């Protein structure tokens, strides 16, 4: 069989696996990450683009496919300019056939390529459910370890802003249930870049959840190359009164709530989980041992969701450390409404997080 290998990123080690021609590279995660402070401010969407472009320059097996990614320069301008650099063979406009192009990319990944599949929105991934849930995460198991599926599915997750119920899905509540896949959900440009680079190198299927509402967010993203490990939460803020954990966009709401709580004299640990599968429960438990209280902010629905899973694991691992019942802040348990006022009441927001912490620390 032809082996399709790519240059190993500096500092990374190459691992062999019978299912993957050419093996796969694992970055040196012991190396400290570059500082988050600096003045190279770029948008979240640019951070994503840099991650993809850097990996595409190193590894010719990587290609990007999705609706409007090439000639239109990306429906949300994430892939702007990439067609010019990489050409139409690697930046591929697809028809509106999510099941078709997701499935096609899974076949290409089994063969040994490294597809990045852009869903304009994760809300549109349901028509590809069979491909992304029944094929990608199960191929290795079903084939008894013969064929892997190194692929990244990425796109906007969560409410975009008055898009109503069909277009505002937070898929993590559903998809986190499936073994065989990994889920990353960055809350800021720095993490978006470092996590996406890790996702592209990762030899397993990665669901990468972005947010339309964050694509324009700006922050310092260092020039130097870095990879953020999966399964390592970031302590955004330190405090001994309560632990708040979240992932994706609501991390920013929680940070806002923390400011107001601090003004009231309540100091919180805020953990940005960064990946849902794997989920850094070690960091959660460590923080609970200090604060004895926890609020979980989850932008998907409450029933059988990620917050519920976190609470289950807390009861298993840290029950005796709790001084109060865990509190979860989810989206309202209804289809996403259109009207502005209804939508903002539906979403987790700083007010609701503030109230939840007050309740938990009362």
């Amino acid at each position, binding site marked *: 069989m032809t082996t399709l290998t790519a240059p190993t990123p500096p500092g990374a080690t190459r691992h062999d696996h019978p299912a*993957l021609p050419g093996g*796969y590279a694992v970055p040196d995660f012991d190396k400290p990450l570059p500082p988050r402070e600096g003045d190279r401010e770029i948008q979240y969407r640019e951070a994503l683009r840099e991650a993809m472009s850097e990996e595409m320059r190193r590894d010719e097996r990587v290609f990007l496919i999705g609706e409007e990614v090439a000639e239109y320069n990306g429906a949300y301008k994430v892939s702007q300019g990439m067609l010019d650099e990489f050409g139409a*063979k690697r930046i591929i406009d697809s028809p509106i056939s999510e099941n*078709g192009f997701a499935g*096609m990319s*899974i*076949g290409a990944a089994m*063969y040994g390529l490294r597809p990045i599949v852009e869903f304009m929105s994760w809300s549109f991934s349901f028509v590809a459910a069979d491909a992304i849930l029944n094929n990608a995460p199960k191929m*290795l198991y079903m084939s008894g370890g*013969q064929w892997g599926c190194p692929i990244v599915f990425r796109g906007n997750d969560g409410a975009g802003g008055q898009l109503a119920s069909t277009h505002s899905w937070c898929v993590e509540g559903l998809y986190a249930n499936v073994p065989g896949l990994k889920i990353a959900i960055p809350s800021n440009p720095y993490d978006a870049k470092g996590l996406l680079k890790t996702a592209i190198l990762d030899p397993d299927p990665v669901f990468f959840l972005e947010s339309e509402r964050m694509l324009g967010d700006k922050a310092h993203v260092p020039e130097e190359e870095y990879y953020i490990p999966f399964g390592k939460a970031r302590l955004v803020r330190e405090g001994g009164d309560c632990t708040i954990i979240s992932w994706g966009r609501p991390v920013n709401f929680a940070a806002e709530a923390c400011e107001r709580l601090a003004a009231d004299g309540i100091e919180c640990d805020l953990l940005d989980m960064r990946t849902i599968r794997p989920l850094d429960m070690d960091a959660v438990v460590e923080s609970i041992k200090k604060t004895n209280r926890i609020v979980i902010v989850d932008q998907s629905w409450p029933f059988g969701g990620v917050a519920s899973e976190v609470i289950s694991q807390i009861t298993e691992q840290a029950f005796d450390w709790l001084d109060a019942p865990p509190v979860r802040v989810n989206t309202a348990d209804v289809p996403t409404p259109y009207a502005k006022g209804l939508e903002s009441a539906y979403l987790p927001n700083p007010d609701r997080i503030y109230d939840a912490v007050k309740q938990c620390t009362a």
Partner: protein
Amino acid sequence: MTQASASTKSPQSTGKPSDGLSDDTLRKWLYDMQLIREFETRTMQAYQQAKIGGFCHIYSGQEACAVGTINSVNQDDPVVLAYRDHGHALARGMHPRACMAEMYGKLEGCAKGKGGSMHMFDKPNWLFGGHGIVGAQTPLGAGLAFAARYEWEVLGKGKKKVALCYLGDGAIDQGAFHEALNLASLFSIPVIYIIENNGYSMGTAIHRHTANHENLISRGQSYGIKSIEIDGFDIVDVYDQFKPLADECRDLQRPGFVDLKTYRYMGHSMSDPQKYRTKDEVDTWKEKDSIAALASRLMTAKSDGGRECLSEDDWKAMRSEIAEIVRDAVQFAENGTDPDVGAELYSDVYIHPVPNLSPMGDYIHGDKNPLL
């Protein structure tokens, strides 16, 4: 390889690809078809003895489809299948032991007992699986061909390939299939969709499950894909028509579509009482039997238009050799190892398992697949 002998045309060529086939090649095809037939007979027995579980779909009757088409391409051309997959797996070169052991749920099976009857995977033979969801394999087939083309065109490695994607007539009703056809033609992907049209989607006859059923190739044609009909009972004819299509799709890097007309002798799956068709209907089709037809062709005198390269005794010997091989496969499966729960339940879920992927504990690497 049969391909080598097939490429040299005999002097009295009439222009058909099969003119160049050697006696050895034809005997090998007969052997392969009979192997599938015998294998399936023993599979049914084992199923009835509850040695095999789950859904199990028997290929008997359709042998010329798999053997004729697979022998028209190269060993390293990717192949992907639906769930009625034992025949293709064997035709592709999977050892009968690995195939039977998989159905027995043994570690020695092609998927270490994790896939079963519907999920035959064989990496050394470029077999990307049987797939249990009707139509799901059709975008995968496009992807395999896309990757093969990308490897050759963008990475500058390898050579022009063509992928084979098999599906039943029921699968043409799936959206995934239409999306795949559109993508294959739009992106000029060298994948051939082979519809093994056995006239039934489970218990639903073709005229009750698909519109314009007498003109299936119009489905392919409407996407600008070269589409042909082939009688799937005459293996030489399958080769004569399929080989040029495969060569053309490889050469031009274009998709193809085949309405391969066939019939299944057994029920849809092992649990099918077959109320939807008569025994007479089945018997009529059996008169066309592809194995009997090829055997007779090889035994008939040249003066009567036959090949005259197989005696009654040869054929008998061949059948008993095959029976022995299949008996051995069953014995091998019987003696196989039950997968160890500690080693296999939580392995092969991730290529790169890391901590905290599951609340149930860590994923691991299991035993190496026996085919690798």
